[in-house]
């Protein structure tokens, strides 16, 4: 086994395969250079947590579709009201004193409208038909969606601001401060929020005097009560979340380093602790939005949301209940729209969580 034969080293499995490359084979026995070794060392591509997450997110078909849906809806509710020929509160039936404008099916023209077209007028079609008062349903649905999105956005912002400030203070300072603050959170958390919202909304409906502001009265007392209750009750989940994050990050070394160089509590909170919790916070906010939209539509459905004539997807659905057998489209359309909105946000939030939640990283 150890004898050499004809100068060819054995045991390397080089054999006599290719006599022409005799010389080349022997060079393989030279030591490899460091570069050659490094080249063979195939490492994975380094990339940041954020980039990794984004790649993962956009490879998720469900999240991608949801994201597109959200963008489309956003564009629609911003752009369409500006260009649409009908307004949401114009009752064509009353305006023209002609009942033929009411309860038109999607894309249908009423008899009066047909007559006007015959006369040479161009009448923009009612994409979703009209309701019992002759109002163009398409624009009403768009406005309803707009209300939902506004509520979702602002309510979530309120929750975000109050919750993260409260949570970070409680988490950072710890000790007695934390104890007391968390007891308060526990109490608020245990209150039946929907019942209280209903209570407050019904009270405020009769008491709030907002006629001096056009914007506020257009929104209606229902909306305002939603915002008030969100500000009072709904931030506790976010507070707990943020506090948990703070508690974990507080123990990290870079916080100690910051303290050692004399940074104050608030500085540390804003500069270090919060940015590190960003991914968890963002996910939470994204999931808070559909929850707020749900609450708004629920309240509108039982009559406590926006005041007529401003439509809400919930109130549209509720009104449509009465004529469900004759004009089902009045119910189906807002139902679909609100389902799409809420579903899109939920699925996108789920996708965000799957891609960015550090706890789920494998």
């Amino acid at each position, binding site marked *: 086994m*150890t004898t*050499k034969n004809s100068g060819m080293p054995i045991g390397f*499995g080089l054999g006599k395969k290719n006599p022409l490359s005799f010389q080349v084979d022997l060079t393989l026995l030279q030591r490899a250079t460091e570069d*050659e*070794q490094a080249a063979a*060392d195939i*490492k994975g591509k380094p990339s940041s947590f954020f980039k990794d997450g984004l790649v993962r997110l956009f490879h998720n078909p469900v999240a991608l579709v949801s994201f597109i849906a959200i963008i489309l809806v956003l564009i629609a509710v911003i752009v369409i009201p500006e260009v649409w020929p009908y307004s949401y509160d114009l009752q064509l039936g009353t305006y023209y004193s002609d009942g033929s404008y009411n309860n038109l099916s999607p894309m249908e023209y009423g008899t009066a409208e047909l007559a006007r077209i015959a006369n040479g007028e161009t009448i923009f079609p009612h994409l979703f038909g009209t309701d019992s008062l002759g109002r163009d349903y398409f624009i009403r649905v768009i406005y309803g969606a707009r209300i939902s999105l506004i509520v979702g956005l602002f309510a979530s912002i309120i929750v975000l601001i109050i919750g993260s400030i409260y949570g970070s203070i409680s988490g950072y300072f710890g000790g007695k401060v934390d104890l007391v603050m968390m007891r308060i959170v526990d109490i608020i958390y245990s209150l039946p929020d929907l019942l209280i919202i209903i209570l407050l909304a019904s009270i405020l409906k009769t008491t709030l005097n907002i006629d001096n502001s056009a914007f506020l009265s257009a929104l209606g007392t229902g909306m305002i009560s939603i915002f008030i209750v969100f500000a009072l009750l709904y931030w506790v989940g976010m507070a707990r979340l943020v506090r948990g994050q703070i508690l974990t990050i507080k123990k990290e070394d870079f916080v100690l380093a910051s303290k050692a160089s004399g940074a104050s509590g608030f500085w540390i909170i804003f500069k270090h602790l919060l940015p590190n919790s960003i991914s968890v916070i963002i996910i939470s906010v994204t999931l808070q939005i559909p929850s707020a939209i749900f609450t708004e539509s629920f309240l509108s459905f039982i009559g406590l949301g926006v005041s007529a004539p401003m439509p809400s997807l919930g109130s549209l659905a509720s009104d449509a209940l009465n004529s469900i057998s004759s004009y089902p489209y009045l119910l189906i359309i807002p139902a679909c729209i609100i389902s799409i909105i809420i579903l899109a946000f939920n699925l996108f939030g789920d996708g965000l969580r799957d891609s960015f939640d550090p706890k789920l990283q494998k």
Partner: protein
Amino acid sequence: MTAKNYKHLLEVKDLHVSFKIMAGKVEAINGVSFTLDKGKILGIVGESGSGKSVTSYSIMQIVDKNGHIDSGSIVFEGEEMLGMSKEKLRNIRGNRIAMIFQDPMTALDPVYTIGNQLEEAVRTHENVSKKEAYKRSIEMLNLVGINEPEKRMKQYPFEFSGGMLQRIVIGMALVCKPDLLIADEPTTALDVTIQAQIIELLKDIQEKMGMAIILITHDLGVVAAICDEVDVMYAGRIVERGTADEIFYRPAHEYTKGLINSVPTLADDHELEPIKGNPVNLTRLPKGCAFAPRCSKCMKICLEKFPDQIELSPNHYTSCFETVRLLNSEGIIDITAKPTVEEEKKEVTEENRVVDEPAKEKTIREIKKLVKDD
């Protein structure tokens, strides 16, 4: 039970196992072969990702769902296990081959008493009464050194310490008197002093019950304490196999030498020599030797093809081109690396194969220091 005559208790031939993950296909095991005889203790060492645990899971056929045994053969007591029916496999598991895992705290179901789980182990394979199962469990608890066994039987896992739980887990594994025990890093999750106790326990029980043991670990001290044979794994392949003596005193593969040299000793002040480079990316295995990028003796050929296994002695094999080169250039059967602690090169021939005694003593002491606290 077959009455077949078989040569080895366990024979693994050219095993290939891979896993599908999001980033691609992980080649966890790439052609592993070894044999184990009755009553012997085999140590499989390697770093995380070397494939040592997967090898044992493959024997038991409890690999994760996204894992797949691509090819190879595993013959236990003369019977081929790959492709065996589910019932036959269940009959073997816990009965003729038993396994214990790394973390005793999570190895037991938290909502049932340990008595319940011990009896379950007995009654799964043997048709005995509850009373009999209870008796056997008590016997086993005594054997593994748990005092007040009757009281313990009624307690829940969370009421025990890590060391005690591992004893119970060992007892549970052995209650059906298996021929082979696979211990996957049984001491890694325990304190150092407890580690020693558990190793002593294993040694003790092995002498009493005579089963073969496969001990998977990354801790060389544990290997030195009880193993007869050692397989060194890297990137899903066995790069060196031999008896414990051969591996510790005459390591051939650079990786093995690296492992032994990277263990800190209190002996002299030689610098710690970590193995340079990064662990291998198992989704993109190089075509040559997987260790080549980190090897100080790397030759160009090492980057091109994987070395065949060569025999250094009847009990000592390795897959390394540098070894082949030394064999060829120095024309000797036996090669030696530097003795583990000293720097000077020693030209060893057939005659003085045995490393001089003082160095041997020192090395044994060093390694044993890692296991016992004396």
